[in-house]
Structure formats: structure tokens, C-alpha cells
């Protein structure tokens, strides 16, 4: 397949189309708007549903409705819009219908700015809405990976009847990179047995998240948790870069991870055996894989475009076996390779000092 230069936002849209998305509902917000604009052109061409909603609240509830009909439905937004969608996400999780959401994160809190950010980590992995649930959160670091993850996201959403979130940031959404796109999948005609299609020849299908009876709702929650446990066991994704002999580890996701990759190379050139551990699934977090590395490294640097969110997961996994340093840039500031490299240098120097540096 030929490589083509694609902007992240547009590549995500085209990948969703090729993965068979039936319906897109969205609302403009920088820096994801090109995704919506692309859908506005392409979906009607293909005879599929595109609708610009009155708000993010409208958009997510349209997704909820279309998902209830068994359609492959999605929306995309950026941080402030995701906050508005949390209500709908909770209902979708409670009703166990599948959908896909893209968050092209920007600087916050509040209106923040339109520069890249990763401060929705907690929101996406921990608190995508009220109640007990986790979406399956996938964080691509390249435009190609964004395409690859989007390509499987509807399958995952339907397999588990869950929410799949592609968590990117403004840099990923705006940047262009060569990608190879997958072939176009034929649209699915069949609808799942649970979908609302009309009662023709069967008992009514009812999709609800309301269970007034406490025991009944607890059973629903137990079932939901059992499903989440299955997802947690089966859907961990991560990448290791130069970790085999690494003394020092950088843990980073998304755009920061590729910056860290450069930093690891810089550190190696300076004689520090550095490696990168990159979670691709933010929920479920690839804990066992990091746990193995944490048992044998001398130090861990966590770099994020936030004030310290994923670092909490990392510390829980490292459990004090190695020092964990945090490098965070906020406000839309992107950390640069030398910042991460100097953290590695610093850590190596402290370690050498602690060990007497007599070697």
C-alpha cells in the first residue's frame, strides 16, 4: 500500500470511515475540528450519517441513540467538549452500548487554550462520567498508530459493548505524517440482537441504565465490573523501546512518548542506558509489563503534558523499588527532548553518586 501524507485529525476520520463507521455526530472545537470537517464532506458522499449537533451534549446523545439502533456511531471533541459529554458517556456505559470517541486534548482547565495537552488522563481513564466504569482508552503516538487504533476501535467497542476512546492531543491532531491506510471495509448490514430495530417478530428490546432496585443494580454493576476485568486482562497494549538493557526508564504516552524516544537516543549517545516504556492502552494500564521492568531498573522518569496524572499509576506499579521523577509541562507547553534527557542525566548522576561512583 502506498504511503500518503495525512494530518492526524483527517487520518482518524478516514480510518473510521474505512473501519465502517455508520454515523458521526459532532460539534466544532479546536484542535479537532478538521476531523468533523472531513466527516462533513466524506460521510454524505458515502451515503452515511453526518450531523453537526447543537452542542457536545447533543452530539453524545445522538451517538447514544444511533448506538442503540446498532449503528457504528462515533463523535470527536477536545477537552472542554469531553467534559460536556461525560453525562452521555455515563449513560452509554450504564446501558452497555458500543461507541467510539476521539479526544484531541488541549490545555486546561477551563477554556485553557488550543495547544496540546494530556491533562484529560484522569478524566478519560478514571472519571469519564458518574458511576463505576472505565472506557477503553487508546493513546496513539503517531498518525499511523492513530489510524491503526481507529481501525480496531469499533471491533473492540462491539466485542465488549463498551466505549472506546482514542486519546490524542493537539499535536497529533495537527501534525502530518506518512501513513498507510487500511482498505475500505464494506458497511455492515446486520444489526446486533440487542439493537432497537422495532419489535417485528420478537419481544421488545429495551435499552436503559435505570434499575431502581438496589439488588438489581448491584447485579448490573457486578456484571459490568466482570466485563471490565475481562477487558483489563485482554486489552493491555504497550511498546518497549530499548528497554532490554535499560538502567533508566522513561514512561510516557502519546506525543510525549515520541519526544521521549528522541531523549532516550540522546541519553544513550551520552552513555546512559535509557529506555522508553510507552503505554498505548491508558485504561487498561499495562501494569504487569511495567511491573517487570520496574523490578530491575535504577530509576524511572515519567513525562506528561499535565501536572502529574499517569505518574500516579506508575508509582503504584513501581512501589518504591526505584526512584520515580516526574517531568510535567502544562498549559499547552510541549516538553522538548533535552528536558527529558536532562532528567535522565540527573537521575543517572544521583544513582552514580549513591553508589559511590567508583566504578
Amino acid at each position, binding site marked *: 500500500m502506498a504511503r500518503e501524507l495525512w494530518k492526524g485529525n483527517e487520518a482518524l476520520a478516514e480510518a473510521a470511515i474505512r473501519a465502517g463507521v455508520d454515523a458521526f455526530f459532532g460539534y466544532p472545537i479546536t484542535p479537532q475540528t478538521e476531523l468533523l470537517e472531513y466527516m462533513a464532506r466524506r460521510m454524505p458522499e458515502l451515503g452515511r450519517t453526518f450531523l453537526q449537533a447543537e452542542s457536545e451534549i447533543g452530539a453524545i446523545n*445522538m451517538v447514544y*441513540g444511533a448506538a442503540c*439502533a446498532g449503528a457504528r456511531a462515533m463523535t470527536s471533541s477536545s477537552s472542554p467538549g469531553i467534559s460536556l459529554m461525560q453525562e452521555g458517556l455515563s449513560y452509554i456505559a450504564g*446501558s452497555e452500548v458500543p461507541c467510539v470517541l476521539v479526544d484531541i486534548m488541549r490545555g486546561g482547565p477551563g477554556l485553557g487554550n488550543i495547544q496540546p495537552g494530556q491533562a484529560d488522563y484522569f478524566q478519560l481513564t478514571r472519571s469519564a462520567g458518574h458511576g463505576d466504569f472505565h472506557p477503553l482508552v487508546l493513546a496513539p503516538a503517531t498518525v499511523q498508530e492513530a489510524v491503526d487504533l481507529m481501525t480496531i476501535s469499533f471491533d473492540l467497542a462491539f466485542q465488549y459493548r463498551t466505549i472506546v476512546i482514542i486519546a490524542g492531543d493537539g499535536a497529533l491532531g495537527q501534525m502530518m505524517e506518512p501513513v498507510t491506510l487500511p482498505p475500505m471495509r464494506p458497511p455492515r448490514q446486520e444489526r446486533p440482537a440487542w439493537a432497537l430495530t422495532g419489535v*417485528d417478530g420478537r419481544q421488545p428490546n*429495551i*435499552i436503559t441504565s435505570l434499575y431502581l432496585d438496589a439488588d438489581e443494580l448491584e447485579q448490573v454493576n457486578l456484571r459490568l465490573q466482570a466485563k471490565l476485568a475481562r477487558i483489563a486482562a485482554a486489552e493491555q497494549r504497550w511498546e518497549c523501546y530499548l528497554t532490554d538493557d535499560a538502567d533508566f526508564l522513561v514512561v510516557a504516552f502519546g506525543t510525549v512518548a515520541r519526544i521521549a524516544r528522541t531523549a532516550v537516543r540522546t541519553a544513550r549517545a551520552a552513555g546512559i542506558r535509557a529506555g522508553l516504556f510507552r503505554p498505548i492502552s491508558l485504561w487498561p494500564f499495562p501494569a504487569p509489563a511495567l511491573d517487570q521492568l520496574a523490578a530491575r531498573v535504577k530509576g524511572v522518569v515519567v513525562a506528561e503534558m499535565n501536572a502529574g496524572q499517569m505518574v500516579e499509576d506508575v508509582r503504584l506499579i513501581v512501589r518504591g523499588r526505584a526512584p520515580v521523577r516526574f517531568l510535567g509541562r502544562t498549559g499547552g507547553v510541549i516538553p522538548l527532548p533535552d528536558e527529558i534527557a536532562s532528567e535522565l542525566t540527573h537521575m543517572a548522576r544521583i544513582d552514580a553518586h549513591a553508589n559511590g561512583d567508583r566504578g
Partner: protein
Amino acid sequence: MTTMVMEREAPTLTATPWELVYQRPAALTDLPTHYCPGCSHGAIHRMVAEVIDELGIRERTIGVAPVGCAVFAYKYFNLDSCEAAHGRAPAMATGLKRVRPDRIVFTYQGDGDLASIGGNEILHAALRGEQITVIFVNNAVYGMTGGQMAPTTIAGMKTTSSPMGRDVLTQGYPIHIPELLAPMPGVAYAVRRSMHAVAEMRKVKKAIRMAFQAQLQGVGFSIVEILGACPTNWHVSPTDALDYIRDRMLPEYPVGDFKVDARLRD
């Protein structure tokens, strides 16, 4: 169990076969409703179900239930149904209808749900001319949460959150939904009816039928506002509640046709 019933021999008490004059519509389940005595919801449910039966669309109709007293509408309608978040039923119905344009999609909403928290969703569904049908029951209070003030609460009316009576200068004025939506080009049918007397109820059912007819003909968005009784939260008897509609609500909310698309036929 069903088989046993079918095998039982029909009683032969009289030579003349009995004429069936009244039965549960196929579009209703046999579940007893949870509604209070004198509440209008049960009768309105039945009318919606009768219309669905009469139009022969039960097999392809999808209902969207609200948050409010009618939250369990999906249990009472013998249809494919879903439960929306508070006020979001028109957005959810939009999603359903857009991906299944050959299905009949309706929302059933109360006044707190539709006119307050869901104001934006109903406004824009109407503005887009979504091919959906909205059954909007206005009883001037939030019923399920215990009778708080709604945007439809009439001036001076006492509720638990307007204990001195609604003061329009500080708490705003009642909202008139069909009048608000009727001028929109995408709206094909916007009317108000009332449940305060039997003759009026017949008009309610006719309007519900027209609203579904609008969707079947694909001429645009349709909404029927129905003035319903809430004896419990109005603190009156069921019969007095009907008088309350007639004497207090009708002056604020006159019944009438605010928009009837010329293409609509019964």
C-alpha cells in the same frame, strides 16, 4: 403457560358470540402502571399505543423515554425502547432516526425534561426538522421529584420550590413550547390539547394520530403538548385536578393548532 391457556376450551354460556368492545392495545404491555390516581400519563400512554396499533406501525416503532414520572414508559409500551438522560430524548431520537430512517421514532417527555433541562435539544431537533414525533405532557410541575417549580408552572402557582407562588419577576414566566416551535420551517405539526374532559381527550388522541402521521408522511417534526393533571403535587382530588386544568392552566396555555402542515392528511 401460554399453551395451557390456548388449550382451554372457550366457555359456551350463550349462543350469541360476545362482541369484543375493549381490549389492551398491542402496543401496551400488561404491566400495571405506577402512576398516581388521577394522573394523565396512563390515559395518554394508552392513546399513544392505540394510535400506533391503528396505524399498524408497532413492529417498526422505537420509543424514547424521558426522565420524570414517565421514566418507565419503556416498560409500559410494548415496543423497542430506550431510556434517555434528562432532557436529551430529542437528541437520542435524532441519532436513532438518522441511522434508521425507515423506523418510526417518538419521544415521550414531561415539562421539566423537555422545556427546562432539554430546552436546547428540543429547540434544535425542531429547528433541524427531525422526522420524529414528540409527545409532550405538561402538568406544570416536576412530578417525580415531588412537585417543584417547572418552566411551565403558571404565575402564582405554589410548588415546593416556589412556596410563595411563582413570582414571575424573579422566577421567570411560563414557557409556551408549541407556540415557540411552530414558526420553524422544519416543524410540520405543533398543537396543544388538554386532558380535562372526555371530549378534549378525543381531540388529544386525534392530535397524537396526526403527529405520527406527519412522521409517516415525512413532512417534518411533530409535537403535541398535552395539558395533564397532577393531583398529587397540586394537592387536589383527581376530579378537582381536571377543573384546575380548565380554570387555571387553559387561560395560560390555550389549546389550539399552532402549525399544521398543509400536506398533512388524516
